[in-house]
């Protein structure tokens, strides 16, 4: 299980540390679903010949245990090691196994935890909600802004809080303390930890992004083993790390053109988000492809309805379409605040759908598959707005996530056969520290900040949709960011457009305060991040997961992010098939 003794941890760590040792992928302590596909790779330093190496699993030849044919590459990509591969293989039986790689007098070994799903299928459907970068602070702020706070009590619970199971989730990857959205999503969708910028692969020494050892994603598994419908709904670009993590295998999340191809190959039934330039052929003005492939046409040829507006989306579902590609913006779809107040890119894209309606229509369509479905819904811009230190927009999108979850809960209530998981992929360093009270004497944000007994409760007024009518109140929440580049700060909301705290500086790779905001009443704040950081950064803090439905009882206490995959695989009974 998850707990191992400190001594055992130190012993295994010591084994893999020496620089000249062989590296085995999947790495030590990997949790592997029995029957799930992965690429097995060993890197032998010094480029030994195939005849001089030996790879075993519990003492038996690895090729025999895993099946498949060994590919052996000396000096892979011109580097001083030999690569041993068994690609696209699986472990058939559950249990702890010891994998050993020998070359001459050097031996490395790792242990894998191959797990079963002994109870068989528990849930017909799984809906995974990702609040990108959503810290506990965002839940608190969303509650204050959408439900109100009177004498210390909220006017209501959030949907994401009103769920019976809860766990603290750790998010670090294999390479660093702080993760990014690619690595963290990859842990949720594959059950394997990886490194920053990587999706569905271990970060090996390969030079080519698409050649790193792959691990199967939940979407691939449920399509291959159960014939489920798959939906991916986000308000980021559809190629962005979180949605891409459902289907992709690449060392670099920025491989948008390859990611579009991966969507096409996997044929997720419903895909919604922004990011059209990577679907358009190179010759089309506005394209970001480097080839002449027109993926809108290619998807159409496979029977997909292509929607570019909310109206077209509604029409496609009204016609009973169950394969829909909805791309509503060249970049990210506008967040809830900008959609409500017609800011952001709504002048260019006036008919973008919101996440709540998309979630509802997508669930309706996916549920037509008698085998069930897997759906991932992401409120992506919580994270993006927090990077840009624009907390009001981030909290609007937390409320947006909450209403999308409400739709899923209403669906799940009908049959109680749907596991719903709501989880951030990582945190930011944020906190509510009081309120800004305009009537306080003085001119600077420090003068206006009320703390402890002076932190007057702001009176945000939720409208019929449940979002505050205005965030520009004389008493406002003091939502503080712990990490920031140089920027000018006036403690006021950015009503007309997303805050851009810093812009590229005179020296290459540096960022300076954006002069646009350095107005009377603002103060210039010296950044506390490296000079090449243009915005706030992620934090390694644990995040809070809430869940309900069949299979949700595994969520309690503290878990690793890989356990989200394990819970979904267990709910679907994937090892038994």
């Amino acid at each position: 299980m998850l707990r191992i003794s400190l001594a055992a941890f130190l012993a295994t760590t010591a084994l893999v540390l020496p620089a000249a040792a062989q590296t085995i992928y999947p790495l030590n302590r990997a949790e592997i679903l029995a029957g799930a596909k992965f690429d097995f790779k060993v890197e032998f330093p010094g480029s030994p010949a195939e005849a001089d190496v030996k790879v075993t699993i519990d003492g038996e030849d690895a090729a025999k245990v895993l099946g498949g044919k060994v590919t052996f590459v000396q000096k892979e990509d011109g580097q001083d090691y030999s690569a041993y591969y068994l690609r696209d293989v699986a472990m058939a039986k559950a249990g702890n196994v010891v994998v050993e790689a020998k070359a001459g007098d050097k031996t490395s070994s790792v242990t894998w935890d191959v797990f079963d799903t002994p109870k068989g299928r528990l849930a017909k459907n799984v809906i995974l909600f990702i609040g990108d970068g959503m810290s506990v602070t965002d839940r608190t702020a969303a509650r204050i802004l959408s439900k109100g706070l009177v004498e210390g009590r909220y006017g209501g619970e959030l949907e994401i809080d009103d769920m019976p199971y809860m766990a603290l989730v750790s998010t670090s990857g294999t390479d660093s303390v702080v993760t990014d959205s690619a690595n963290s999503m990859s842990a949720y969708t594959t059950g394997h930890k990886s490194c920053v910028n990587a999706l569905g692969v271990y970060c090996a020494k390969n030079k080519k992004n698409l050649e790193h050892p792959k691990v199967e994603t939940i979407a691939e598994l449920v399509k291959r083993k159960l014939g489920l419908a798959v939906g991916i709904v986000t308000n980021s670009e559809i190629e962005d790390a979180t949605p891409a993590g459902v289907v992709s295998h690449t060392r670099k999340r920025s491989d948008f053109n390859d990611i579009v191809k991966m969507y096409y190959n996997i044929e997720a039934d419903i895909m919604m988000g922004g990011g059209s330039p990577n679907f358009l052929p190179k010759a089309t003005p506005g394209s970001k492809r480097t080839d002449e492939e027109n993926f809108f046409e290619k998807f159409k040829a496979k029977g997909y309805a292509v929607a570019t507006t909310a109206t077209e989306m509604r029409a496609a579902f009204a016609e009973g379409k169950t394969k829909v590609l909805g791309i509503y913006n060249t970049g990210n779809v506008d967040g809830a605040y900008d959609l409500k107040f017609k800011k952001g890119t709504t002048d260019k894209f006036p008919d973008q759908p919101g996440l709540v309606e998309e979630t509802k229509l997508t669930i309706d369509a996916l549920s037509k598959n008698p085998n069930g479905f897997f759906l991932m819904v992401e409120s992506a811009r919580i994270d993006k707005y927090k990077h840009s230190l624009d907390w009001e927009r981030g909290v609007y999108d937390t409320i947006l996530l909450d209403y999308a979850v409400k739709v899923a809960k209403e669906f799940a209530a009908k049959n109680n056969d749907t596991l719903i998981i709501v989880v951030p992929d990582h945190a930011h360093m944020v906190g509510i520290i009081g309120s800004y009270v305009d009537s306080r004497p003085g001119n600077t944000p420090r003068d206006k900040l009320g703390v402890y007994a002076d932190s007057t409760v702001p009176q945000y007024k939720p409208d019929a949709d449940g979002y505050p009518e205005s965030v520009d109140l004389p008493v406002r929440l003091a939502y503080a960011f712990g990490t920031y580049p140089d920027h000018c700060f006036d403690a006021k909301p950015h009503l007309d457009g997303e805050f851009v705290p810093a812009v590229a500086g005179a020296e290459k790779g540096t960022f300076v305060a954006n002069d646009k905001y350095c107005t009377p009443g603002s103060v210039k704040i010296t950044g506390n991040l490296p000079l090449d950081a243009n915005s706030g950064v992620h934090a390694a803090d644990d995040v809070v997961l809430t869940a309900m439905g069949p299979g949700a009882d595994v969520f309690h206490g503290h878990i690793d992010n890989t356990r989200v995959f394990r819970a979904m695989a267990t709910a679907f009974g994937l090892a038994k098939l």
Partner: protein
Amino acid sequence: MAARPASSAISCTRRELLAACAILASGSALAAEPEVFTFDTLYKSIGVMGIVYSDRLVAAKGNEISLTGYMAPPLKAESTFFVLTREPMAICPFCQSDADWPIDIIVVYLAAMSPLVGAGTKVRVTGRIEIGSWTDPETGFVSQLRLRDADYRRV
């Protein structure tokens, strides 16, 4: 090469009085006054299915135009190549693997290798407008709009 105010006989530097300099320059180059565009007048529409250029821009194809924007963080301190953006760039796609360029960028090929000013600087660029997909052989950078034989000055 067509005459351009900033590179004609009258040479202006950022240290000089730009207004006075501009008057002198325009006087000397009236015949080849470049057509002035803004980022808004380049496009008829920007939509999910692509960009449609404005009729004015299409009519100006191959001609010299001038456009004001921001120099994106350059690849090298001295180069013949930089990217012009509508807003100062908060991201550096060349520096960060997860960043991406806005859709409405213009690639600028300078007439001569010259030192680039700091990123985020507002500049007016004058050059021959080229329309159509082009992959830079050196960097692999794909662009749809380019200003060729260009030069720039700070605004």
